């Protein structure tokens, strides 16, 4: 298991959507650094640009301005060649909110999870594929028998854990989670969050965790940035931000979560 260190640096990254008159700036120029030991939480309401930020890091969207560098090399550069793209994808993986279409309905989960292994790590030997899948199933507490199923035969929580398996099977150095628990039941949310947290700390990898709910973010991350209308309005250590929020929007967020949160529920069980 490689424990290589990395640095991801965003400098003046901006993203606009639309043309000319109907131009909307989704992400205002942002500076950010993510390291191998970062647990960065990104929080904000819907439309605050947090998902766009996550998608830009993995290269699903191209920044309008600014550069994103991974280990000193621009991501655009990584993605421009085939080998570079494969290397970058092996190091940086992305999991999105669960939808019914996050898996190809015609493939079994085995095929879906084995695909990145085959293309990104070059693992084609059936024995090795099987043992790697068994290992990841172990770590994410998945029943290996379910690999033979098709996506519509699973519940949302199971599907989301298979999404995680698909991303983590290549042993990336950085995991980007985009609203991974938002669509799940509260009880399932806790399980998934715990899995992510323990996996990330066990493998000493970086994490960018995007969510709109404060409890999940505060549970899983050590640093925090708060976004509103595309701009970062607050950043810092989680404990410090929670203790002394400086921006009115953060205060508003904090006061909105006075009820029981899923993590403490999970802990109480």
């Amino acid at each position: 298991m490689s424990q290589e260190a990395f640095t991801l640096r965003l400098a003046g990254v901006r993203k606009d959507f639309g043309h000319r008159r109907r131009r909307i700036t989704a992400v205002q120029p942002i500076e950010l650094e993510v390291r191998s030991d970062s647990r960065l939480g990104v929080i904000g309401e819907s439309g605050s640009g947090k998902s766009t930020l996550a998608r830009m890091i993995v290269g699903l969207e191209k920044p309008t301005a600014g550069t994103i560098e991974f280990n000193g090399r621009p991501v655009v550069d990584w993605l421009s060649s085939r080998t570079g793209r494969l290397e970058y994808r092996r190091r940086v993986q992305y999991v999105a909110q669960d939808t019914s279409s996050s898996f190809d309905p015609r493939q079994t989960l085995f095929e879906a999870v084995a695909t990145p292994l085959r293309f990104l790590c070059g693992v084609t030997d059936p024995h090795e594929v099987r043992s790697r899948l068994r290992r990841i199933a172990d770590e994410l507490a998945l029943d290996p028998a379910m690999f033979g199923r098709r996506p519509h035969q699973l519940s949302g929580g199971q599907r989301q854990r298979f999404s995680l398996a698909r991303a983590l099977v290549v042993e990336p150095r950085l995991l980007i989670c985009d609203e991974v628990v938002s669509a799940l039941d509260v009880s399932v949310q806790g399980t998934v969050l715990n899995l992510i947290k323990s996996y990330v700390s066990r493998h000493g990898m970086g994490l960018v965790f995007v969510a709109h709910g404060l409890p999940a973010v505060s549970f899983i991350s050590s640093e925090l940035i708060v976004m509103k209308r595309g701009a970062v309005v607050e950043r810092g250590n989680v404990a410090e931000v929670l203790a002394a929020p400086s921006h009115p929007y953060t205060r508003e967020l904090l006061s909105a979560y006075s009820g029981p949160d899923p993590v403490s529920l999970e802990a109480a069980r």
Partner: protein
Amino acid sequence: MAETHVSAVLLPRARAARTHFPWGGAAAAFLPLIVIVLVAVLAPLIAPHDPEKTVADTRLAPSGEFWFGTDSVGMDVFSRVVFGARIAVRFGITVAVCATAIGILVGTFIGLSERSRGIQSALGGALNRVSDYIVAIPDIILAIVVVGIMGASDLSLLIAIVLTLVQAPIKLTRMEVLRVRNEAYLEAAELGGESRARAAFVHVIPNSIGPAMRNMPLIFGNCVIILASLGFIGVGVNAPTPEWGYMISSGLSDLMLGEWWETVFPAVFVFLSVLGIAYSSRAIPRVWPRIAAAFSTPSKKRKNLA
């Protein structure tokens, strides 16, 4: 859009417990197609005479020996009609397969090119416009022109008919691809290191061929119609070949004199086969979800899904 997709995925599961292969419905839907294909395949066994040889006197009325009578050169009309099914089915299946395969490839290319950049987008857009214009050409007229330029042959007929009938699968596949290309699993495929070409063939095409495949019986039927029409106006297959349209037109002058059997029997066969295929092409999409459900019923060892 999303809703129909969800229900298409979820319905089979909801019914899974008691899904059996719908024998009755499937048989009824496929029956006309199967009968026509069987007649075509077994033509040499069914037909009592050689369809392209003079076997008796000319213009004999239907009798025990010659069920549908004989034509103006003494060939057995019944044998010719039966072998006519062979010509129709051979063309129909070839055209349906070619048009659907080409249509799926072109439709996928157009669908994936839209909203992409550069030369691929320009090419896809151009193909889409070309297809729009070709739809405007009446099928018979296009076939006349193609046959006129290439000379009469099976190949020119095939190209002419495929060119008109390929437009429907192109449009159907394009619509599906435009839906599929927004699905999250394509992003996942990209993140998993799959190339665009592989994603197109492994994920996009299998998930968007449904409508084009269900359109195949319709293409088959249309092909039979166009082939008969071309044969009828004299631009179809060459002379002694037992083709229905040509048989109808060559018997016309005898029809005026009251010798109806040369024309009427092939006309009845065209009529019945077109209606039969039309019935199948409407019935198959109706039973298809149940057939698909019967195949994708999850295995017995379903564990608790909680």
